[in-house]
């Protein structure tokens, strides 16, 4: 599966486009202020997400959301497969020149993977953005380290210029505002954001963005099944207008984790048993800890003796982060950390370069994960020649790296880089060959923590969104998931391509202040217990003044606005053939209405009128035609329904069998 995906990513056009400016989106506030129609409010979402595959380290996430007149950038990722300008999102879509600050209200980073935060210093320092950048504490701690590491590889090793500097990373991090889980952060008067636990890596978060009654939830990458060191993503029933979800594993319902873990352990065990060495190239943070915990418990249970090493430097530091941010791990680790910190490994020791030549079996975790440089590559070169050894790739590899080549089954590797040659010479003095035979076993096993189709559906059930937007996945698979979502939840589901803008129209409810007197009066009318399931109609006067909406009783409104009450009355004449005298006709009408309109108050007043509720009926006739009676009906605007009913009723004439009392 992973292989297919890789081809896809390369063929994808690098078209990236970003948002609209504020002005394009009418804001709700302006509308109420101007006091014109309360029409629907548009919520524009423009998404630019490079559709990436199963790997967690490719693709580039950058989504722009316009909601209620606010523009928010969600993630600011970078593409690891490119070395040129296409690496970063095209921010010129937002503005052709100048800084981004005035076009963006805030930037939110979901987690520290470079495909979600890699372009951040480029955007804030080189393009120019001074507004707030929000991320969780662990992300804020780890993100600069990964960025610096990445910068070193790109600039120092590959010798690229026109790249951000260490100072830029530092300056960028100064703009970061840390975010706590479930804390409601008020970005400005109207815009608020709230973070939820996402369980993808340490500190990964989903964010809810809210302006007035409209809201969007962006999941970032998330995982719905708790693993050995992280908990499951969770969100409350916040009913967002749009849920933007990743869909990396859109069609897969992954085989149980237990199976994958068993496979992994079996392979490691077999290799170690026959005296081979196992190399596991990993990224310092994330899956490395998961696999360490897995091996640690296995070693303990099986009472294994073969040493496990962890390449030094970043990884050791990484474990320290896990210890300090233990509140972000799962329940079990948090509960037991005082007795035994899961990240203090008993069997796993720090690696030294010289250990690679030690005889006998061993397991080594080494960075980086794609075998493109550093310690993992060095060790790989030493062990590649022996078919007893094994390399397990737990993550995705970008095209062009050695990791990618060996996964494709390449058996002979050309070492093109001068630096590599020197390394080889140093390792095996006297031998100058430039190619390397790959004899060791190569295994690929995905342990990345993304939600599968079941997980995505589960999240939808949790949050109950009105619309769904899928990003960060493959078009074909997304299509399948989209159908499934639309079928099961009957909600709209969008899957915008890169650079495409999706607009969703929301039905915002309008908050109104109601005077307590009026509310109490209306409640008293409706009996003791209102039925919560049935909406109730109530009458009042809505005053729109100074940007506020207030519902008060009509009398109060008139008083407040200094207006006289105007009565709007409808009057109509109905001609009727009736041979009786006027008072008799009136009493006949009275009897008739009494029999037809049960449950209404009908009064026959001594002054020669009939009142039905507040509707007045009078009878008159001219001297010339005493049998043609003219009925005068008069009702106020409030009784329009009853009034028009009465007039049609009386037009039909009176039934003959009526007594005049």
């Amino acid at each position, binding site marked *: 599966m992973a292989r297919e995906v890789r081809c896809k990513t390369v063929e994808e056009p690098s078209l990236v486009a970003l948002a609209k400016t504020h002005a394009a989106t009418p804001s709700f506030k302006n509308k109420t202020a101007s*006091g014109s129609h*309360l029409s*629907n409010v548009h919520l524009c979402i423009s998404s630019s997400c490079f559709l990436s595959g199963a790997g967690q380290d490719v693709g580039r996430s950058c989504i722009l959301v316009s909601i209620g007149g606010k523009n928010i950038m969600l993630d600011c990722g970078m593409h690891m497969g490119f070395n040129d300008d296409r690496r970063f999102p095209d921010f010129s879509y937002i503005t052709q020149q100048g800084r981004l600050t005035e076009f963006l209200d805030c930037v939110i980073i979901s987690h520290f993977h470079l495909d979600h935060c890699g372009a951040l210093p480029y955007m804030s320092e080189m393009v120019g953005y001074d507004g707030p950048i929000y991320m969780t*504490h662990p992300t*804020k*701690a780890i993100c600069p380290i990964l960025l610096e590491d990445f910068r070193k590889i790109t600039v120092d090793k590959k010798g690229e210029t026109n790249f951000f500097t260490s100072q830029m990373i530092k300056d960028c991090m100064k703009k970061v505002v*840390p975010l*706590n889980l*479930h*804390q409601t952060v*008020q970005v400005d008067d109207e815009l608020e954001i*709230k973070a939820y636990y996402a369980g993808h890596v340490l500190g990964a978060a989903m964010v809810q963005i809210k302006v007035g009654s409209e809201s969007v939830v962006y999941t970032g990458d998330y995982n719905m099944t708790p693993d050995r060191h992280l908990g499951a993503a969770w969100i409350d029933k916040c009913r967002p207008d749009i849920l933007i979800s990743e869909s990396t594993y859109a069609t897969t319902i992954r085989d149980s984790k*237990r199976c994958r*873990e*068993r496979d992994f*352990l*079996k392979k490691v*065990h077999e290799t170690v048993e026959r005296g081979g060495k196992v190399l596991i190239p990993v990224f310092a943070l994330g899956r490395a800890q998961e696999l360490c915990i*897995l091996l640690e*418990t*296995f070693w303990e*249970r099986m009472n294994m003796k073969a040493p496990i090493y962890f390449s030094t430097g970043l990884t050791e*530091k990484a474990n*320290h982060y896990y*210890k*300090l*941010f*233990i*509140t972000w791990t799962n329940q079990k680790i948090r509960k037991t950390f*005082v007795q035994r910190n899961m990240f203090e490994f008993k069997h796993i020791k720090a690696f030294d370069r010289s250990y690679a030549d030690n005889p006998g079996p061993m397991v080594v975790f080494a960075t980086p994960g794609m075998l493109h440089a550093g310690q993992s590559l060095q060790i790989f070169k030493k062990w590649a020649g022996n078919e007893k050894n094994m390399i397990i790739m737990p993550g995705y590899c970008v095209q062009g790296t050695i990791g990618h080549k060996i996964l494709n089954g390449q058996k002979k590797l050309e070492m093109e880089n001068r630096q590599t040659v020197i390394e080889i010479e140093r390792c095996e003095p006297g031998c100058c060959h430039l190619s390397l035979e790959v004899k060791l076993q190569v295994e690929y096993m995905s342990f990345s923590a993304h939600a599968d189709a079941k997980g995505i559906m589960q999240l939808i059930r949790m949050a109950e969104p009105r619309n769904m937007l899928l990003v960060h996945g493959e078009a074909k698979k997304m299509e399948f998931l989209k159908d499934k979502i639309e079928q099961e939840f009957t909600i709209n589901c969008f899957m915008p391509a890169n650079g495409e803008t999706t607009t969703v129209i929301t*039905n915002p*409810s*309008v*908050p*109104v*202040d*109601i*005077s*307590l007197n009026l*509310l109490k009066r*209306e*409640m008293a009318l409706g009996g003791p*217990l*209102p*039925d*919560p*399931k049935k*909406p*109730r*109609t*109530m*009458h*009042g*006067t*809505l005053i729109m003044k100074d940007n506020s909406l207030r*519902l008060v009783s009509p009398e109060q409104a008139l008083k407040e*606005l200094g*207006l006289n009450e*105007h009565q709007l009355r409808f009057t109509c004449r109905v001609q009727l053939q009736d041979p009786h005298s006027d008072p008799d006709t009136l009493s006949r009408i009275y009897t008739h209405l009494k029999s037809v309109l049960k449950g209404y108050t009908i009064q026959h007043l001594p002054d020669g009128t009939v009142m039905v509720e507040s509707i007045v009926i009078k009878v008159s006739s001219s001297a010339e035609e005493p049998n043609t009676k003219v009925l005068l009906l008069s009702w106020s605007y*409030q009784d329009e329904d009853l009034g028009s009913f009465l007039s049609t009723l009386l037009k039909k004439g009176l039934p003959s069998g009526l007594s005049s009392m």
Partner: protein
Amino acid sequence: MKLYCLSGHPTLPCNVLKFKSTTIMLDCGLDTTSVLQFLPLPLVHSPRLSKLPGWVSKDGTINLEKELKECAGRVFVDSQPEFCLPEKELLDLSTIDVILISNYHCMMALPYITEHTGFTGTVYATEPTLQIGRLLMEELVNFMERVPKAQSATCWKYKEIQRLLPGPLKDAVEVSTWKRCYSMQDVNSALSKVQLVGYSQKVELFGAVQVTPLSSGYSLGSSNWIIQSHYEKVSYVSGSSLLTTHPQPMDQSSLKNSDVLILTGLTQMPTANPDGMLGDFCSNLAMTIRAGGNVLVPCYSSGVIYDLLECLYQFIENANLGSTPFYFISPVANSSLEFSQIFAEWLCHNKQSKVYLPEPPFPHAELIQTNKLKHYPSIHGDFSSEFRQPCVVFTGHPSLRFGDVVHFMELWGKSSLNTIIFTEPDFSYLDALAPYQPLAMKCVYCPIDTRLNFHQVSKLLKEVQPLHVVCPEQYTQPPPAQSHRSDLMLELQPPPMPYRRCSVLGLPFRRRWERIQLLPDVGPVATHLSDLQWGKKIFTQPPIVQVLPLKKMRVRKNPRTTRGDLVNNLQRAGTKVTKPTISNTLRRQGLKSCSARRVTLRKPVHVQARLKFAREHLDDPEEDWENVIWSDETKI
């Protein structure tokens, strides 16, 4: 809107606010000063304490030899220590919907409130408050259960007898409500009702009220609370600090524009400057050690001790105390030190940036690593063999009535070389020392209380401008010992509304507006009508309002509520209904009754799948199963 005051202690409050048909309890502090009336509980048999004479009244008419013992002219109760609980009679505790906790010192009465009272609500607290609160409760239970005392004294509590007793015992209040400590089971059950919240998280209660915790700067995870509807705002300020210690700084601006501000938990030591006290603490400690004596610091196992250790970390290098061992003895010492390091989000900016490096935020990690600070669960076990003198011992309980501190008092009390330094402000040090008299050991009193003082609070109130202030009556007059200090009280315009134990205050509110939502389909009607142009834009229209009755919410929240529960519940509220009425009402509202399933639902398809799995794996060799990691931790 009403405020019921269940505790008279100004720093350990327990108030109940009734607001828009929700009942909210604000904190449940446990007044532990009552334990000062009791004899200490020694860890090892103390001949001195067991030989104390019993008390008999002067005329010999009352003989309570068994219950009361005399020591250095004072009378103590010889029984398991008891605590003074919040008032339980003022209102029905089962009607409480939520409890808001402000800090871990103010939740110690929680098991008394939530257990065995019919309480079905939720408790809201921040994560550090919950975790450290749990540690403090665990410690308390451990202290009590470690040295069980069969005897329980009850006779002295009779009003006629208490009246005739000497000294402070005669003046003890509410003795009939005094209770023994809860059990660990109660603690676990009470804490399982806690729901975690983060600072500035908006929590909706039944759609009627919104509550929000704010950072209060006093301790890890300590919070003030905002309780508001769309038009009314009540701020609850409890235990706040403006000093820069380890917790996140206080959030003041969110308290602005409150209608009512309930002010509790001001400093208990208004005349003592915490920085000066910290200096005194260090210099006295150094002096004693240099003279070859030991230092005993009775303290709580979390809170100020972190600051003390941090201060000592800098101090010992300069003062040449590098070789002196520091011991921290408490059943939860290790947990407390470990927990303090993992709450980066709740710490001040300085400490947060340390975590980014990554380094532990508190320097006591280094003290432990370099073996300068050692922690032990109790004086038994490893400690007795590794213990070296002269040394500094931090241990509880600060009342000197139970815990390991009792042992050190007996051990070191007779030598004038040793010093005891009091740092916790909760107990009067003279009262605490009373049962150990005569005492040769030096006593130093350096109470460190970082909570707001009167100067800070008046500045704060000027800034946030609440319409009304409610506070314990103690704050409306100068402390009795310093009656001339008119600066040690609250002077406000309008004057604050004082409360005492058992007060019920009506809060001055005039509710005039309520927020409703217009359904969007009303929109067109509105625009249509506006075309009528009645002079100005004013028109009538029918919005649609939904009101959720609270009773239904209660059933939905807790589906195991029975009809009988509701009948009782309503009867207490003064409404008499029958069970069939309840069923009918609930059915009308869409809630049906059902009985709980006793086994998991297994449809035929599940049965088939299980059978298939079993058949497939029937012949798997045993080694295969060894490779399986069982998610339920089964071991094969």
